[in-house]
């Protein structure tokens, strides 16, 4: 896994937390603070993983995931990270069934849970 990991959250402290956890594994991280920013970065770079906040100020996290899922080449695995949904939320189950996201992580989470997401492939 040489490609970087994209972290999308409008809350800078959340990005700080996720970056630290991932960087502790020696992986490279890029952050985006809005949906627009995330889409731009997804188009112009190849990512192995996206940790995506469900509620962004300009668009829904799942909308970003949907766009990522349409990418033909180097399609990243997307994990939805949210305090708004719960793990058996119909919206979440639906998105997983559709293949738009590969996993869901509820806030707050343990650092180990987040790392498990990375190793779960």
């Amino acid at each position, binding site marked *: 896994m040489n490609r970087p990991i994209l972290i999308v959250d409008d*809350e800078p402290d*959340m990005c700080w*937390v*996720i970056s630290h956890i991932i960087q502790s594994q020696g992986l490279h991280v890029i952050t985006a603070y809005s949906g627009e920013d995330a889409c731009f970065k997804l188009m112009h770079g190849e990512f192995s993983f996206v940790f995506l906040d469900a509620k962004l100020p300009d668009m829904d996290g799942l909308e970003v995931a949907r766009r990522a899922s349409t990418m033909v080449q180097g399609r990243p695995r997307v994990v939805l990270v*949210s305090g708004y949904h719960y793990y058996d939320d119909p919206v979440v189950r639906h998105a997983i069934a559709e293949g738009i996201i590969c996993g869901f992580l509820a806030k*707050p*989470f343990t*650092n180990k849970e987040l790392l498990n997401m990375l190793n779960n492939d």
Partner: protein
Amino acid sequence: MIHSLFNHQDKNNFELLYNMLLDTIPSSVLMIDEKLHVISVNRNFLVKSQRSNANTVGLPLSEVFPSVILENTGIEERIRNAFRSGTPVNGQKMTYRAPGVPIRTYYYSILPISPNQLMLLMEDITEQVRLSEEVRRVERHLASVVESASDILLSTDIEGRILTWNSAAEKLSGLNSHEVHGQYFFEFCDTNQKQAVRLIFMRMKHSSESHTTEFHLLTPKNSGSILISWVFSPMKDDYGQTVGTVVVGRDLAERRKLELQLRQSQKLTALGVMAGGIAHEIRNPLAVCCSAAQFLLEDTITAEFHKECSRKIQTNIQKASAIIENLLRFARSSLDTEMAEVNLIAVLKETIELVTNQAKVQKIQILLPMQKTHILVSGVSGLLQQVFMNVFLNAINAMPEGGVLSISVETFEDRVIVRIADTGVGIPVGQLDKIFDPFHTSSPVGQGTGLGLSICYSIIQQHLGSIQAESRYGEGATIIITLPRL
């Protein structure tokens, strides 16, 4: 001698003229001699008593008047006295009923003319008596209306001194009407309202409009006070001149209790709507704290990172706590109902903070171009917050696909106007005038009580303001709230 001036013809003419005059006047005139026999009568008497000249003239009084009248009025005795003393008897009352006609009331005077002649003058005042009784009846009716009212009803002179004070006022204040008569009304008002009440009376002098307000009425006997909703109206005379003030007051205790319950339950509904946004917003700082705490457990971290983690934990706990505090403030504030000086801008900002989470979740941008930081109104900040919260949540609900919620505040003369506009679905034609009705809702069953805007309406009314809506279906809606500025 007057006689010698007239010849016989003239004298006849003269008598004729006088008879004509006597017959024309609308009073009964009888000439009576010292033996109490009728010498002559005018036509009016004959008509009223249903008698003819032949069976009246030359007869004793006792045969002309019914005996019941003679006995009750003692008129014969009075006539004899008048003959003896030569002094007239003025303005006595007599009721008389001739056979076959309704009872009539007369004023009579006994006027001696010569030692053996006097005039009995009777004026029919039946109609006047009837009218004055009618007036008294209307007055009694009005008085009993005023007295039976459960609202305070009082009148004052133009300076605000109490003239009348009804039983409801006595009951509620514990002061009876002679204790307050002639006293200035403001003396019985809450201390910090005295000046304001004095100003209302000043304004009444030159105004033709009513003034509505709320303040406490003192109940000195139990050294307390009660909250009353007042309406002051100028009292005008027939020429449109203000001659005093009429004050109507309604005890608000019972209504307030019900309103409080209703507002509280509506607030819980609003809290339910906000729950989603709040969950999201609290879980973010919790997630940061949770992970930062785990970093601290690692053995290999630097002192610098250690400090950073601690700082993150601290600020995020504060962040979560602030959200909870706002929530608590919103949930509890309706217990406070005292009107006070309130900075409307601060109330607006606090309320916006509460809905920011919900707005973010729905991708709604909140615009608040604020020039002033301080606009004072008289109000209950918790209630005003509830109004704005309701309007904001309605706007947010109207924009499920996101949009813009813009809030503008402007002052105009003695008013402040708050416009809250959304870019949502708007209000359908025909529903615009219903939206403030209780239980009117456009939400699916079980998702809205339909009480929100009706509660807003009652709260704004309590603040002596107004709330209106403007909308074009499909193009969003604007709620306009106007409040008096301090």
